[in-house]
């Protein structure tokens, strides 16, 4: 039973990390209906940037990390201005394809710049691991858990009450209408990409600290799809809840698997079975808004 309990705790902790990545997805989706297939590369860029600041410049983490975030902010804006701006108003699916193109470019660029070998982060916390309910957990996971809760609360407020948040939602709903209201679609998009890049960096650095940075890290981008959909594509809270569910599911599935089934990779597949099951009952995920269908 302790094993089960420990797996549960681990699921929650890792799930929170999925939640962070899922949030950065949702952010872009909420403002532009674009599914960003380059999200994983955002993580990677964030992780490499921080790694580079920490190793080549020997900056302490408390300085290097904020600089990374600022860099990612700028990076998001520049990316939007240079690549995605001309695509405003074009079919969404084409824009999605552009993000796929971006992921190819970044993947190659990162390997070119930082090489193909996994590189470890310098030690950051005095105690690399800590005890959470009897489970040894990497400290950085716990810290990122805290950060993700903060981010989530911030976004919840942002989209419900702030003027810009509303404007972002309006832009996602109908760009033409948004423009007719005086909202600059470009600004909204730039903003969403910037914030999303920043949030991704948080996750990227976390994963990097735990496992070392390598280009394979970008795989996280696709891994959180089920989390995003489970929670509901346009729900910030959903993203986090979805992330937690997937995290826990993976661990529980692994438990069942290792104890009884012995199928092997249940932990990888189970989220997808559950995903389909949940979607059949709730077609817009747990918290997603339903399309309004009127004729």
């Amino acid at each position, binding site marked *: 039973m302790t094993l089960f309990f420990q797996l549960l705790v681990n699921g929650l902790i890792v799930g929170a990390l999925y939640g962070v990545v899922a949030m950065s997805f949702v952010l872009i989706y909420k403002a532009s209906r674009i599914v960003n297939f380059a999200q994983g590369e955002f993580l990677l860029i964030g992780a490499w940037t921080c790694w580079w600041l920490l190793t080549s410049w020997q900056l302490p983490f408390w300085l290097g990390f904020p600089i990374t975030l600022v860099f990612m902010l700028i990076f998001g804006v520049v990316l939007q201005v240079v690549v995605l701006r001309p695509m405003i108003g074009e079919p969404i699916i084409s824009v999605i394809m552009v993000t796929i193109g971006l992921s190819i470019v970044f993947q190659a660029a990162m390997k070119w710049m930082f090489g193909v070998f996994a590189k470890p982060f310098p030690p950051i916390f005095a105690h690399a691991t800590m005890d959470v309910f009897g489970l040894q957990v990497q400290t950085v996971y716990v810290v990122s858990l805290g950060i993700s809760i903060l981010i989530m609360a911030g976004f919840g407020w942002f989209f419900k009450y702030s003027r810009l948040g509303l404007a972002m939602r309006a832009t996602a709903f109908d760009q033409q209408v948004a*423009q007719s209201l*005086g909202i600059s679609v470009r600004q909204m998009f730039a903003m969403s990409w910037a914030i999303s890049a920043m949030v991704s960096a948080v996750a990227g650095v976390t994963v990097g600290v735990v496992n070392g940075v390598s280009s394979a890290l970008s795989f996280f981008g696709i891994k959180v799809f089920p989390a995003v959909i489970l929670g509901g594509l346009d729900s910030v809270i959903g993203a986090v809840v979805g992330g937690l569910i997937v995290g826990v599911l993976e661990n529980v599935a692994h438990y069942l698997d290792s104890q009884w089934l012995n199928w092997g990779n249940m932990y990888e597949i189970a989220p997808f079975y559950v995903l389909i099951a949940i979607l059949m009952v709730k077609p817009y995920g747990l918290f997603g808004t339903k399309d309004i269908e009127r004729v």
Partner: protein
Amino acid sequence: MLNTATAAPVAPPVTTAKKLMLSVNNIEVVYNDVILVLRGLSLEVPEGEIVALLGANGAGKSTTLKAISGLLKTEDGEVTRGDITFAGERINGIDPDKIVRKGIFQVMEGRRIISDMTCQENLRLGAFTRRDNGVKDDLEMVYQYFPRLKERTGLAGYLSGGEQQMLAIGRAMMARPKLILMDEPSMGLSPLMVKEVFGIIQQINRDLGVTILLVEQNARMALQAATRGYIMENGKVVLDGTAEELRNNEDVKEFYLGGGNEERKSFKNLKSFKRRKRWI
């Protein structure tokens, strides 16, 4: 056979002493680089007035409004000739969001409210460009004009057609613009509601001093509310004048108001011979 106004492509200068708020000068609009929709359209809107723009389906009325508000861009359309001046400043080619900031607000055809938001959120978005503190007060003002919007707390997508139209107009009011471009506000409204909406349009114009360029199919109501009117066909203005003049024009009576001097005609015997418009 009929009177004077055959093909007057360029409107005569507005005679009133009032300042011109908007003037559209001989513009040409092309969609997708190929479809020529407006061919040398001109019109003028004096400050503080309600100007009606009438015309058949597909004449290019909505296109005209989108050309002014800049939204044409979002539909692959382009003003290829002529210019549009607002308060003395040339505004063609400017992005729609900047035009809103200059004080022109378009209420688009088909309401186009944001259906997955509440009424209040929709209204707050109307005031997006504003930075002042009056937003709260204006919200109350809109609720006074349209009390039922306050009662509806659900998502705007579930409002009935009339309510959505009110919301769209209310959203325009929230922006506190100088000029509202209104595209068929009465479409799909019940007679009672049409009256109400036109009343409110006049009220807004009177109380808030907002200039209004009104595109309508309901010519009767439009010419009643407006001070001036333009009639367009096939991308050109074919007739213009004060509302009074237009109301008395025989062609306008026949094609837009229904019935000449006699009883309004019955739809029952329509299978009879149809007379076609002759000013084109």
